């Protein structure tokens, strides 16, 4: 009994197995943007590139509905929305500001970054392809809802 216990003691020194949890949730919410023809009031696709700074491509698609990611280390950015980036391109600049907040998801995921108090300001130039920006939902928390409508 005694010797057995000594052996067992050595074994129990090691901890029990811990399961490695996986995180399947996105770490930050994206700004869901619809592109709408101002005249027809219908969704209409645009060939689009969104740039941050000089040349950081944030998104590039031909679509009428886009998930636009936001940075988590600053609460104010200027994005360049380029229509028809290949030929006959038109660039509009938009100032975007928001408050960075977080929601706890799980032990494996930690916190998901969310954005609240969204504000957008279109910089006027001689030829804006963006006619109006409407903020539908200033709280960017989930992927399923639309936050912004851009009329062109």
């Amino acid at each position: 009994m005694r010797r057995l216990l000594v052996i067992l003691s050595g074994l129990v020194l090691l901890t029990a197995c811990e399961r490695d949890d996986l995180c399947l949730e996105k770490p930050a919410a994206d700004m869901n943007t619809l592109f709408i023809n101002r005249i027809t009031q219908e969704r209409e696709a645009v060939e689009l590139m969104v740039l941050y700074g000089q040349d950081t491509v944030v998104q590039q698609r031909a679509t009428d509905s886009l998930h636009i990611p936001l940075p988590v280390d600053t609460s104010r950015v200027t994005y360049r929305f380029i229509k028809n980036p290949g030929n006959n391109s038109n660039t509009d600049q938009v100032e975007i500001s928001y408050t960075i907040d977080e929601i706890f998801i799980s032990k494996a995921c930690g916190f998901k970054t969310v954005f609240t108090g969204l504000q957008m300001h279109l910089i006027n130039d001689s030829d804006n392809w963006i006619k109006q920006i409407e903020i539908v939902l200033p709280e960017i928390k989930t992927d399923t809802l639309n936050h912004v409508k851009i009329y062109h």
Partner: protein
Amino acid sequence: MLKFIINILTLLSGTTLLFAQADSIVSNEKKASLGLRPAYDIGKKIWSRYRGGNIDQIALHLNYNNHIAGIVWGKEQMPFTTDRYDFFTSGSYFKLEYAYNFYENWPGTSNEITLGIRYAHATFDYTLYRFQRIPSVPVFMPADETFSREFKRLDAHWLEITSAVRAEIFRGLYLELHISGKYYLNGKRPQNFGLIYIPGFHTTNVSKFGFGLGYGISYYLRL
């Protein structure tokens, strides 16, 4: 894999002890035996120190014939660090236990193989001091937030099924090994944070179940 082999060996060793009783002479005398067993948990102390924290756990058991009633007290300070967040737990717990000893002792010995149940309650605070913000695309940089966010007066209640083996190593002093399955009941959870670590229960899981192995020493005082 190694941990799996060890767990299997521990289980097999425990059952070997039970079979060893087949050879012992059962005494015909049945005297009421009464004893007190204070115990100190070494396993948790080493495990916690290794992780930069500290757990002090003591227990007191009252034996009457083969019935055991016990109280366990513990105090913990434990850090919990991951890539995505770091926090610190500080708190205490107590457990009430009833167990039955299945081992037939020769007169004069008080070795035990027990099976028992416990009710446990812990009260604790968390201090969250770092978490990482990760952007949804790799084009942006992650950012660390460091500050001190406190979650105070949290608590938890749970049940345990425990099994212990206690063997005398020399005069009155025993080495004990325990294994337990835990089931979380309820308690006050932190707001916008997770109930990730509970003193006495240790790391929690998505399910309400937990599992633990431990060892310590005790002294048996015959009354």
